[in-house]
């Protein structure tokens, strides 16, 4: 009797093994997801990971006959560590795609690997313009800092803002944000009264805000990494700058959806330009936010859509190549790909492999007792202005 069951069990196991073996024989597409789950950028990593999980939950783990396997690694935002992880994923785990990369140096350090090993590097977060130029296998689904900075300059010029003080964090994305804004704003006849740079680590904005206030601008243009928006907002209102009639404008990083609910009423009225707001009015986004919040109990931010759309891009490209997962075929399939993302219609630029997307002008408002970036104006199909200007 007993032995019969045992035989049955063994047979079942063998069948199971055959079945999975079969799936593997058809092939697996491996994605090495390198994000920071610890350290300074942990909130970004958490958002991306949650979005990737959500996408796979919604769309299954098989596409075009291929099984999708995501291998998660924690980079801690340390570039040389990122490089080693990427290298191991490529050499030992034979991944087809490396994805993630929340800071620019991490994305750049992996670029030569992508070129040398011929794997796709999918940048889901980092926003410096130059990244996609560093390897023919890099594709980006996040944004570039100049995309937002240039658009907010256009908007400011159209809305009777003539004199601006810029405040940016003292590091490369800050310079990018400052340069793009300043050039565009000046070309519209605007005036930059002062360009202030604040230290990146543990900033105290108070003295800088005082200097900015003394210059009596129409508006202050702000760029800080997403984590510092709350502190800035608090000090901005403490100094009474909002009551002095100074508007606050910037890229969307300062009113990151991840932190906005905790910023308090100080943030109300801030006008920013960015590619995603959790409040974006579309059926796709409503479904996305609802599913995301249900799974994670926090609000998706602009980093999360980078991860979500990144997964979509991989799935769609695999469908188009009918499961061929070499870098050449995937990149060819990804170029020019268009789809409806939670953030609105987006496209991968066939020339630069960078993202083309709508940039929205939003104002922080209270809706149902919660703060949201409410979109009120759309600049359609914005390309990365830095690369566009080079041509």
């Amino acid at each position, binding site marked *: 009797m007993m032995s019969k069951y045992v035989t049955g069990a063994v047979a079942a196991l063998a069948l199971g093994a055959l079945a999975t073996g079969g799936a593997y024989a058809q092939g697996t597409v491996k994605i090495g997801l390198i994000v920071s789950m610890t350290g300074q950028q942990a909130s970004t990593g958490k958002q991306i990971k949650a979005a990737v999980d959500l996408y796979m939950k919604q769309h299954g783990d098989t596409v075009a006959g291929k099984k999708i396997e995501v291998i998660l690694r924690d980079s801690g935002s340390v570039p040389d560590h990122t490089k080693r992880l990427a290298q191991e994923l490529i050499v030992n785990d034979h991944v087809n795609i490396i994805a993630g990369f929340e800071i620019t140096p991490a994305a*750049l350090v992996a670029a030569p690997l992508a070129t040398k090993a011929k794997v796709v590097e999918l940048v889901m977060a980092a926003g410096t313009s130059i990244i996609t130029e560093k390897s023919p296998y890099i594709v980006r689904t996040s944004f570039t800092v100049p995309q937002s900075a240039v658009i907010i300059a256009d908007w400011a010029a159209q809305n009777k803002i003539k004199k601006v003080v810029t405040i940016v964090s003292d590091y*490369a994305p800050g310079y990018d944000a400052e340069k793009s804004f300043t050039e565009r704003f000046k070309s519209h006849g605007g005036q930059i009264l002062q360009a202030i740079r604040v230290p990146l680590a543990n900033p105290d904005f108070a003295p800088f805000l005082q200097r900015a206030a003394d210059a009596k601008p129409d508006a202050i243009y702000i760029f800080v990494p997403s984590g510092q928006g709350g502190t800035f907002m608090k000090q901005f209102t403490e100094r009474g700058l909002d009551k002095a009639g100074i508007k606050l404008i910037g890229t969307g990083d300062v009113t990151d959806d991840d932190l906005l609910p905790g910023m308090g009423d100080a943030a109300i009225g801030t006008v920013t330009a960015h590619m995603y707001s959790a409040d974006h009015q579309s059926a796709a986004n409503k479904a996305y936010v609802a599913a995301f919040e249900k799974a994670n109990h926090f609000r998706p931010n602009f980093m999360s859509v980078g991860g979500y759309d990144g997964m979509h891009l991989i799935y769609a490209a695999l469908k188009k190549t009918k499961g061929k997962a070499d870098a050449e075929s995937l990149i060819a399939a990804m170029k020019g790909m268009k789809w409806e993302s939670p953030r609105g219609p987006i496209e991968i630029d066939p020339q630069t492999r960078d993202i083309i997307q709508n940039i929205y002008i939003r104002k922080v408002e209270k809706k149902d007792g919660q703060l949201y970036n409410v979109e009120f104006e759309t600049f359609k199909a914005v390309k990365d202005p830095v690369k566009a200007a080079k041509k």
Partner: protein
Amino acid sequence: MIPSPAAIRAATEWLSARARWHPLEMLFWLAAFAAIFVLPDQHLILTEIAWLGLFALSLDLILGYAGIISLGHAAFLGLGAYTAALLAKFHIVDEPVLALLCGGFVAMAVGFVTSFLVLRGSDLTRLMVTLGVALILAEIANRNGWLTGGADGLQGVDIKPVLGLFPFDLAGHTGYTYCLIVLFILFLLARRLVNSPFGLSLLSVKSNPLRALAIGISVDTRLVIIYTISAFYAGVAGALVAQTTAFASLDLFSFDRSADLLLVLIIGGAGYLYGGLIGAIIFKFMQDYLSALTPQYWPFWIGLVLVVLVLVGRERITSWTTPIRRLAARLDWRTTAHLTAPSTEEPGH
């Protein structure tokens, strides 16, 4: 007073016994070199371990042998890395070994200059001074983006083959072999150094600077020398980082690096040269294993291990391995009991 011939003989015997190779040491290096052939798919992490081990060794030289505590040792790591990377980028020195030495020497020069700051004051002052030096260097690198690439990191570094023969490969085979050989050579030099009369005088400086001064050891000179040498080692470690990753970024200067380094040395135990290497092995493999297992929560486990280590070696956290080393000494067939007595483990409390 002239010491008796017997006393002199005993002293020389003790000295040569200290310098003698223990079988476990040989085993350690045999295993390290064997890894070139038996663990080909682990070479990338082993490369990291090798340079981290060298970096920790450099801290051990000042912390374990001279009692200088530093929270800014990453300054030299960063200097070495940027020097080697810049030399390669602008094709000034294309050969990696030469660039490596240059990286070491630049760090050494800065180490020499800043050592005079370190001489001033006690442990707390030293912590602040070393930390400050690292912060200043990081900011200089950040400000001079035209040269260093700023916060984006230094790109476009093309590392040529080692000695013109061995190109760096994707799987890290060349990288590991290269790092290991550099580590081994520098380890031999360090071993010779700490077992020399100079090394012994350092230990006396560490345990009681006043008394060392009283018996005619010039304390400051010795501290300057060992700090400068340590900076050279850290610079070489940094150059290895830059060469094996073909990249250099600002975080090489960061406080986290220096703090992690202390952690590595504490895990391995300071003051016997192998501490840094063993610490690097444990730290990296633990980090790699745990972070693959739980990418979110691995720092918790590392923290727990550290707490346990501190509890086990309560009186001196830097020497929790002492019982193991005593055991190892007992196993050594050549070391007799009277020779182990005045060992380095208890340089005096």
